[in-house]
């Protein structure tokens, strides 16, 4: 399975290594660095590489490469999935998964990695279990530790490993018992030049934050579960119950977790919340071009569109842009040649507009294709598919928990072709 793990920074600096079997020299990373050099963009590095004696499987997250080395056949997704779990765990522990943070917390990272794999096979990947063994660092605790000589490593060993609900730690106690669920939907869409939808679908997740005492058994039901086409669950959800009754029945992990993710069946029409009127043209002569973009609300179900941002990756030959925005601010990144327009709230009375000129390198040919426009937005209090949670029941415990559901719609991979 996994022999070794190397963490490599964006610039190619190997700043952490960990071996679970015999030590593999870090020179093996040279093959990877070579491939990275060749592909230019870090996104373009092939996740699975082959070297004379080893196989390299890597992921790219938070400007970091997690590179694992293996010597024998292993399902590549197995490793990829695990590496993402590692990254998720770091995120969970340190609030961020970046080079600086990992360097600051090397010891905790090392302790975590030690617990997560044994001989290259995943041992404990549930964050609840890990947190019992190794406490996440907080400022208060580090102060206390230095004063008292205490440590971050749990004195008791995890009980979750052994129980039938390995995802939940035992003896959870809260004074305020609360359970929050966020229904977050993302619209993936491709719109063509004229604004017609080439492809659109809705993907959603239910993120939960459950802080309940004891061993609560929860049942979450939906008003319209038929909307959900393809679902995947946290292991705590009883699948049979979903099959027969279309309710989510589970003993929740403690804290934050993703309860389910779903896909809304393609029969349903997807409401597209905004429309884009755009005109990007490059002149045949004079090495310049024009840009004019207006955004307006389309199907927003009466809600306000917020956090609207527009990203336009310009062709490489573009030198600079000179634009004026009626609302929000725009920036032009010289290295990636991307125009980023942060619009903010969408005001239906006064539609935001961005217009101006683009200048191109002299002598460079007119760009063949107009850049596509990527849109990011957020609509609070709305699940665009119309999914609604009908009720949450709790069994197994006596107290009355505080319950809440929040709906958010976001743009996923929302692209307008021009």
């Amino acid at each position, binding site marked *: *399975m996994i022999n070794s793990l190397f963490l490599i920074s964006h610039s190619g600096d190997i700043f952490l290594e960990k071996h679970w079997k015999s030590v593999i020299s870090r020179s093996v990373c040279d093959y990877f660095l070579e491939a990275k050099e060749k592909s230019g963009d870090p996104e373009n590095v092939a996740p699975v590489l082959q070297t004379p004696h080893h*196989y390299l499987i890597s992921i790219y997250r938070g400007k970091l490469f997690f590179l694992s080395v293996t010597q024998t056949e292993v399902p590549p997704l197995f490793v990829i999935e695990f590496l993402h779990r590692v990254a998720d765990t770091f995120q969970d522990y340190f609030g961020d998964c970046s080079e600086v943070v990992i360097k600051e917390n090397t010891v905790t990272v090392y302790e975590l990695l030690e617990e997560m794999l044994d001989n290259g096979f995943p041992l404990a*990947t549930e964050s609840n279990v890990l947190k019992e063994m190794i406490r996440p660092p907080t400022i208060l605790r580090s102060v206390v530790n230095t004063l008292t000589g205490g*440590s971050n490593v749990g004195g008791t060993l995890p009980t979750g490993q052994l129980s039938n609900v390995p995802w939940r730690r035992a003896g959870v106690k809260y004074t305020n018992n609360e359970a929050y669920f966020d229904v977050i939907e993302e619209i993936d869409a491709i719109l063509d030049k004229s604004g017609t939808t080439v492809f659109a679908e809705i993907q959603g997740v239910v993120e939960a934050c459950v802080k309940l005492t004891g061993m609560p058994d929860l049942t979450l039901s939906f008003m319209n579960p038929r909307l959900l086409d*393809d*679902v995947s669950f946290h292991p705590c959800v009883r699948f049979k119950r979903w099959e027969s009754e279309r309710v989510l029945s589970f003993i929740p992990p403690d804290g934050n977790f993703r309860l389910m993710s779903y896909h809304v069946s393609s029969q349903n029409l997807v409401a597209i919340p905004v429309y884009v009127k755009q005109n990007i043209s490059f002149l045949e002569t004079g090495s310049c071009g024009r840009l004019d973009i207006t955004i307006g609300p389309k199907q927003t179900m009466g809600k306000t569109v917020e956090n609207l941002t527009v990203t336009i990756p310009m062709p490489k030959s573009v030198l600079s842009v000179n634009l004026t925005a009626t609302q929000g601010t725009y920036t032009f990144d010289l290295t990636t040649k991307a125009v980023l327009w942060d619009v903010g709230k969408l005001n239906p009375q006064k539609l935001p507009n961005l217009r101006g000129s683009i200048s191109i390198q002299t002598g460079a040919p007119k760009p063949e294709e107009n850049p596509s426009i990527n849109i990011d937005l957020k609509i609070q209090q709305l699940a665009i598919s119309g999914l609604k949670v009908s009720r949450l029941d709790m069994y197994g415990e006596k107290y009355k928990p505080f319950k809440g559901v929040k709906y958010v719609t976001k743009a996923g991979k929302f692209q307008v072709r021009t």
Partner: protein
Amino acid sequence: MNGGFSSLRSEVAGAMRTVLVSAESLQLTLKPELTQEEQALTHATAGGKPRENLKAGNEDLKEMLESNKESLKLEAMKRIVQLISKGKNASDLFPAVVKNVASKNIELKKLVYVYLVRYAEEQQDLALLSISTFQRALKDPNQFIRASALRVLSSIRVPIIVPIMMLAIKEAASDLSPYVRKTSAHAIQKLYSLDADQKEHLIEVIEKLLKDKSTLVAGSVVVAFEEVCPDRIDLIHRNYRKLCNLLVDVEEWGQVVIINMLTRYARTQFTSPWKEDGIFDESEKAFYDSDSEEKQGQREAKPYIMDPDHRLLLRNTKPLLQSRNTAVVMAVAQLYWHLSPKHEVSIVTKSLVRLLRSHREVQYVVLQNIATMSIQRKGMFEPYMKSFYVRSTDATHIKTLKLEILTNLANEANISTILREFQTYVKSQDKAFAAATIQAIGRCATNISEVTDTCLNGLVLLLSNRDETVVAESVVVIKKLLQTQPTQHCDIIKHMAKLFDNITVPMARASILWLMGEYCERVPKIAPDVLRKMAKTFTSEEDIVKLQTVNLAAKLYLTNSKQTKLLTQYILNLGKYDQNYDIRDRTRFIRQLIVPSEKSGALNKYARRILLASKPAPVLESAFKGQLGQTPLPWTNEMDRDRFQLGTLSHSLNIKTTGYQELSDWPAAAPDPSVRNVEVIEPVQEWAPSLGKAKKPKSDDRFYSDDEEEKEKEGSGSGSEDSSSSSSGSSSSSSSSEESSSESEEESSEDSEKTSSDSGKSLSGSEASSSESESKQKKKRTKKAMPRKSKQTAAYSDSDENGNGPVGKTSSSSAESSSDSESDSDSDSDSPALQKKTVAKTKPKVEVKSKKEVSLLDLDDFSSAPPSAPKSSVFSSSLLSDLEGLSLSNVSSAMQVTSSPFGPVKTHELLHHMTGKGLSAKYHFPRQPCLYQPSMVAVQVILTNSSDHSLEEIHIGDRSPGSLNVHCFNSVERLEPGASVSVSMGIDFSDSTQAANFQLCTKEDQFSVSIQPAVGELLMPSTMKEPDFCSEQKKLMGMNETSATITMATANTSKQNISKQVLSVANVGVVSSDQNNLQRFAGRTVSSGALVLVTLELRESSTALLTINTEKTVMASMLLRDLKQALFQA
């Protein structure tokens, strides 16, 4: 084993002694060494040598480690771990660190472990110092301490302690704590990699751990199995079913490993479900054909029966498609791809497409696998075509893969959509991607002849593109396309010749030159001119262009030597002295071939035929079949990627990786399936007759023999239309019942030992009372039949004891209870602990092999509501043959006494042959229990072809969702003129006389027909004794009673005539009575099972009081009216 163990023990004792001795001596020598070093160092610092200064950093760490303060030690260890993490050498601190191995501080201890594991290999002697600490910890009462001691002990790669590790592993393998056992499974692999000679001993441990029933251990031990002895497939046999059943509860990483292992296992143990598919389809179509005896015979000779264990695996992995772990989903997908019958593979599609939403790396691997799948099975992914549309933000390798899949999916129907999409991609800023798109267009053009011209025109337009790569790629693709149909495309060739000067990419230039040469006769004026230009620039061209120039020259020389003789000679001379030996070789060869000389061989006269032979058009193949990631070169024909198991590293890299286990081909004949049987420890039924000697499975023997009998019957009865249809019905339901029972077998097999009436009683209140009382006096046959019904109803509407639940509910719960067992309902409501228990207890059991099994199993597994009725396994299949007998005589058991005077059943017209364009249909109610679902009313339909041509594919068309639940008859493949066939169907009227409307379709036409039942047909007879009748009647007084005084025709006054009339109207049973003037009939409604009691009290002369007691008041009044009429008439 025992002998081995004791010898091992002595070995260990010996090793231990050496270890301890060496440790002692080390400790002794350690001290002075240290002090020496210290002295030297203190000296050095005093002397202030710069080289030593560098070491000073580690020196103060050593000091910190030797201090008495825990916090200092901890701080030092943290800094050391930081050094390790950066890959810096900290091995010189080993002696100082190893002393702290027994520290009380857990964090300190853990960090010491980290250090120890990292450097033990380098400092073997010193590492031995720590061993005794771990040995002590191995005996600790705390399981976690035991486990972590074993973990570290086994991670220390010091060969001398192998015997100690071996002993520790063996002991841990029988530890009470599953967590420790799991750790021992991990330790097995570590020991194996350290010393492969231990293999035999380790296999013993693996064998032992494989038997472990804990879900915690299962995954880890399979990993060990795969690493140590993947070829010992025989170890899996007895654990196969356990692994299948535990699978859902194993942690996700273990699931991946187990699924992959089981895939490999299944390929060696079961026969292929693939090749039989075709045969099966054919036989199904032929099934209802009246002259298909022959084919049926064939079918019996070659049945494909899926091994129940094979099915078990497929069924138990299916829920895992919903896992959040992408590796698990992929593992299940590959399992289905490699193991399931072809038509079931598509259930994985949706889940795979879902994975595309995941991280970029996941997308990459999943797309690779989809690409391979889509080459073989277009249909699987076609509905999700749009999910593969490329976004400009995708990484290049993702784009290429998506493009590949889109090309694979292209067919006549969707090509226009795909081409429109491709048009967008061609304009992409990513030029490599644009080039790949052009290739894809070329592939579409060759594969789908309808669009070849469109594509070609589009590509010609691209020739004027500004981008060089795009133009070059277009030229190359056009060249290939033109080869397929050169005649019409002179213009394109001319156009390309014009562009020639502007094209600089060698491959494109070479392609144009080749085209010129190949079709030089079509462009006689242009070709020599191109050659002239080439002669000028020959020396500065790329090799590939030069080769094609030589080619062009040779071809022109043969066709048009007058104009080009000199040019050719000039070029051949240039080529003769080229730097590249390929070109020199080619030139020499061409010269010999075309220029006649005295020495030139016999080939000269064939030169024309050699050079201008018509070339076969190239096949534009999926670039993905070859190596992906490199530039796709369609003409490099590499081995197909699909030789590898999907989802593996080998598949991803398209090379055979170390440790890749080849997936074997299906065996021609399945190895003995009985090896998977487990001895009866728990109350589990053995299904193989070979092991059926045990006391318990007695009932099973009956099961088997009866089923065979039934099969025979079916075979012999296939001649007559009627019996073939009815027997097929019963056989299908029998196999489905076996299927459904298989999971709950354990319980039901116990039940079957008890008397059947017992089980009826325990299951439902009022039902039981009736069935019980009745069973006492009736014959054996009825005795069995009735509890069956009661149990059925009980199973169907579990919440409703009276069996009066609404129909919708019954059917929905039927779906649940049919495919899943009791364990489901447990697991739903109870804690997972219980669930695990039941799962562990449930074992694969008896599945009777019926030849229709395949299709029925499918239905069970893949549609939420199986159309066939799941019967509880309480009654054996002998009952089914009984039922069969009943259906043949067209009377139900309860009516046997009374129905003899009852004449032929009334038939109704369903479709007149005038409206039906020759097809006529009649139906009647055979009044037998419906075999498809107990809540359905059986309807016999006789289809007659009164036209002069044969009718094909007579079947029931789609029904609107709101209509009644109808179980269709299997489509009648062909009906010859004048022939008629009788088919049976089931309709759930939900106890109302609402007509069932549906479409009767033939191949050409469809006719709307409707079946309206008389109220009496919605009943089924219920047999009860008079006292029971009276007590039931008392419960149904008041609102539930309807009565009327009726006048009867004089002919009807005799008791027999009355019952005859009543029975002709309603399907009820006679209740024997000793009162002369009272006649009683009892029945139940078919759908909800509500009692309907009819009492006829004879008054003077020809009047009588007719009373009907039932909850269904509407039915009562309708029945009353019908009866009144019947009795009045005659």
